């Protein structure tokens, strides 16, 4: 390195010539794979499937599920009056079969905190499938289905989840660090009727795909899905009501 860097900042415009700056985009190992074996990627569900394959055989394993997606998936379900449950279901089976009747008719959050809200009509029509659910705008994601049931306000739940997701920011990328708390605040204002959906969408567009990880993208997916699946909730709350809970204007607390 030369001694030319006499400026106040050694890496600033008056400093060295930046020849060490990489000229190519960094590749993500999660996309391209790790170049140096051995590799070890696993989770509890993968271990469970490995055990099934070892104890049975491939043919027996493939007897469940569909031809395109053999085997089973683990779904975690949270419903209002039961303890959280984990269900092992064959691919291709109906999602509504893992949900109790008490939650029928109400929207559900599919895919976890980074997932998507879906109307009950959509949930009732879903069959468990990774590629099959995606075109419907409802990704299986983490396999978590939160069905709050009738009487729960999806907007209020989304506000709580967004607050949590904003607190879980790794604080490394500016748009996420600034944007997620701003989205959470804008959602609070939609909930109490003092703000509109337009501000939420404005902030969402400033956050999405502007981070090193997908945390902001997942948070935006959650927020956008609420307004897509349940249109009119913002104006209902602005008028003091809530469509999902059926609360009339002026009655909501």
């Amino acid at each position, binding site marked *: 390195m030369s001694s030319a860097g006499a400026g106040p*900042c050694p*890496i*600033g*415009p008056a400093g060295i*010539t*930046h020849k060490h*700056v*990489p*000229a*190519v*985009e960094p590749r993500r190992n999660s996309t391209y794979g790790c170049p140096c074996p051995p590799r070890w990627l696993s989770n509890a569900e993968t271990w469970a499937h490995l055990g099934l394959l070892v104890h049975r055989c491939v043919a027996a394993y493939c007897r469940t599920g569909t031809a395109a997606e053999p085997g089973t998936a683990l779904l975690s379900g949270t419903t209002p009056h039961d303890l959280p449950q984990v269900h092992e279901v064959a691919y291709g089976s109906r999602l509504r079969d893992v949900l109790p009747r008490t939650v029928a008719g109400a929207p559900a959050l599919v895919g976890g905190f980074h997932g998507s809200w879906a109307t009950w009509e959509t949930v009732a029509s879903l069959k468990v499938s990774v590629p099959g659910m995606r075109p419907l705008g409802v990704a299986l994601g983490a396999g978590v289905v939160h069905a709050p049931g009738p009487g729960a306000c999806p907007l209020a739940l989304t506000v709580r989840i967004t607050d949590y997701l904003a607190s879980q920011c790794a604080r*490394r*990328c*500016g*748009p*996420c660090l*600034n*944007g997620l708390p701003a989205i959470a605040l804008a959602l609070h204002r939609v909930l109490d009727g003092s703000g509109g959906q337009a501000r939420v969408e404005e902030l969402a567009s*400033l956050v999405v795909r*502007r*981070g*090193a990880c997908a945390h902001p993208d997942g948070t935006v997916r959650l927020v956008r899905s609420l307004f897509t699946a349940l249109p009119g909730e913002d104006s209902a709350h602005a008028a003091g009501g809530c469509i999902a809970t059926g609360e009339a204007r002026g009655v909501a607390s």
Partner: protein
Amino acid sequence: MNRQLRVDWPACEARPAPRALPEIVDLDEWGYPIVTGPVTAELRADAVSAVRACPRLALRIVE
């Protein structure tokens, strides 16, 4: 071939170089860059200057 200006988000600290490439770089409400278009041949020299001027080395041109 059009090239893209990419931001290294963890490195970026919202310290844009003065007047860095206003043709294709806006700033959001927190001062972080919003890349609005590709680096065309006419903008290439300015884009290289912007990459070199970034005090956090957070910009790069990718193909």
